[in-house]
């Protein structure tokens, strides 16, 4: 029933789109989410530079972003998406809602990771005459690296699953492919094959992340 000669290259194309969407969205989320997470920690009460109001505003914004179901966000930010990419359809357009969704998610994970760093290490650095940005750069981020990698891995996996959801409204990638060629044409085999490809991608991401985190964790 499945015409592999015709569908095969399209499956490959869809896989590439998924990797592309999630990769770019992840890169952007790191650029935005890591500083946001750092700010959440630094401005918190008892942080390096306590700013209660700014902290509450940032925290509220992050919570708002986290509480929106992705499928709603997808529709809600369509005007922004059009403004940025000129369209709301296809994988490039999907990068916008993916990034908006993953940034607060990652920011919270970064915040948690940084809070795990023993306060004594920060104190030791301050006693050495470190500036606040030195503390962030040379103590907080490097010491939290294993947790940060683990957080990034969780975020990529979440992005992959969100990107598949974007397929429902023509977002491109494997989700889109599964709906159009598998679901709408009643080609169960193809749907299953798509799921297997998704699983393989997630597996590779998770394994790489775990390895990296383990290698960077210098614990006995």
């Amino acid at each position, binding site marked *: 029933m499945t015409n592999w000669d015709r569908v095969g290259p399209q499956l490959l194309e869809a896989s590439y789109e998924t990797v592309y969407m999630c990769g770019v969205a992840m890169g952007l989320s790191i650029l935005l989410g890591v500083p946001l997470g750092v700010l959440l920690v630094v401005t918190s009460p008892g942080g390096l530079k306590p700013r209660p109001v700014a902290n509450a505003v940032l925290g509220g914004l992050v919570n708002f972003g986290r509480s929106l179901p992705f499928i709603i966000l997808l529709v809600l930010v369509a005007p922004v998406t059009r403004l940025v990419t000129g369209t709301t359809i296809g994988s490039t357009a999907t990068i916008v809602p993916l990034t908006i969704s993953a940034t607060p998610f990652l920011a919270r994970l970064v915040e948690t990771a940084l809070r795990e760093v*023993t306060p004594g*290490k920060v*104190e*030791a*650095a301050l*006693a*050495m*005459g470190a500036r606040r940005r030195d503390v962030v750069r040379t*103590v907080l981020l490097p010491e939290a690296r294993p947790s940060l990698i683990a957080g990034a891995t969780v975020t990529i996996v979440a992005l992959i699953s969100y990107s598949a959801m974007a397929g429902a409204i023509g977002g491109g990638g494997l989700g889109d492919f599964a709906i159009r060629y598998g679901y709408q044409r009643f080609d169960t085999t193809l749907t299953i094959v798509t799921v297997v490809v998704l699983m393989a991608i997630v597996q590779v991401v998770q394994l790489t992340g775990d390895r990296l985190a383990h290698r960077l964790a210098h614990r*006995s």
Partner: protein
Amino acid sequence: MITLSHITKTFPASRRSPAVTALDDVSLTVARGQVMGVVGPSGSGKSTLARCINLLERPTSGTVTVDGEELTALPEQGLRSARRRIGMIFQQFNLLDSRTALANVEHPLELAGVGRAERRARATELLERVGLADKLHTHPAQLSGGQQQRVAIARALAPRPRVLLCDEATSALDPVSTDSILALIRQLTEELELTTVLITHEMPVVKRVCDAVTLLEHGRVVDAGLLSEVAARPDSPLATRLLPPAERLPDAGTASVVEVTVGDGTTGSLISELVRRYGVDVDVVGGAVESIGGTRFGRLQLAVDGPADQVRGALDHLALAHLELQGSTR
């Protein structure tokens, strides 16, 4: 070298706890080259005191002067460079797990903007100095507590500070490591002409390395002085901690038992003098002799026996000789 003048530190009330006065009008002077012990029960404000010296905690009032520079008057930037002249080590070592021993020691030099080659050379030299020449590329997790504290000492000394603050530096260590770390602190203080403040709750630590000692209780200085001085004032709060008196004087039958505190190895001559001048029998029935601050001090329980008036004479003699007397005359 270090002068704390009328330091008060109050932590404001929070939702969970009422306001706490951790330090209450504390004044303290540490002379150049001295090892000053700060002792006291937990919660007495010792650690807050240490943190006030490098202004990790800013005192609510009072001034901190280190090496002629009033730290409490410095702006942020000046304070950061002043902190480089004050090394600090901690109970939990606080090394960075992501860095090797060498990179940990390089950290303060990095912050001070020292070039890579010079950093490496200095860090290597320091790790050799603290006896870890073979552990340069080892991560803290692979080191024992004592070794980690050695790395922390090397790190604290990397920017060539004039002052070393030790906050319960041996409290997480086993007795053998404690001894070797204390010996190292003493040795480095002398060789590098440091001025050292050692926060501890353990009196034996003070006896072993300190020249002077300050006793804090409830955030106030209760007693202070050179070790040899305070030990010679047997009823002072510090002396009773340095050389605890006997809880109960031993029973010696008909003899009068007294406890005396003697300094500088005069025990033998004291006893022979009593025997010679008063014709009494003197027996040492208990006590301890220890070296404190380089001087030998003893708390001895003596049983003095003989005719009543001669015994009285001997006891009066002890009292006149300014030796602390406590005990029973039967």
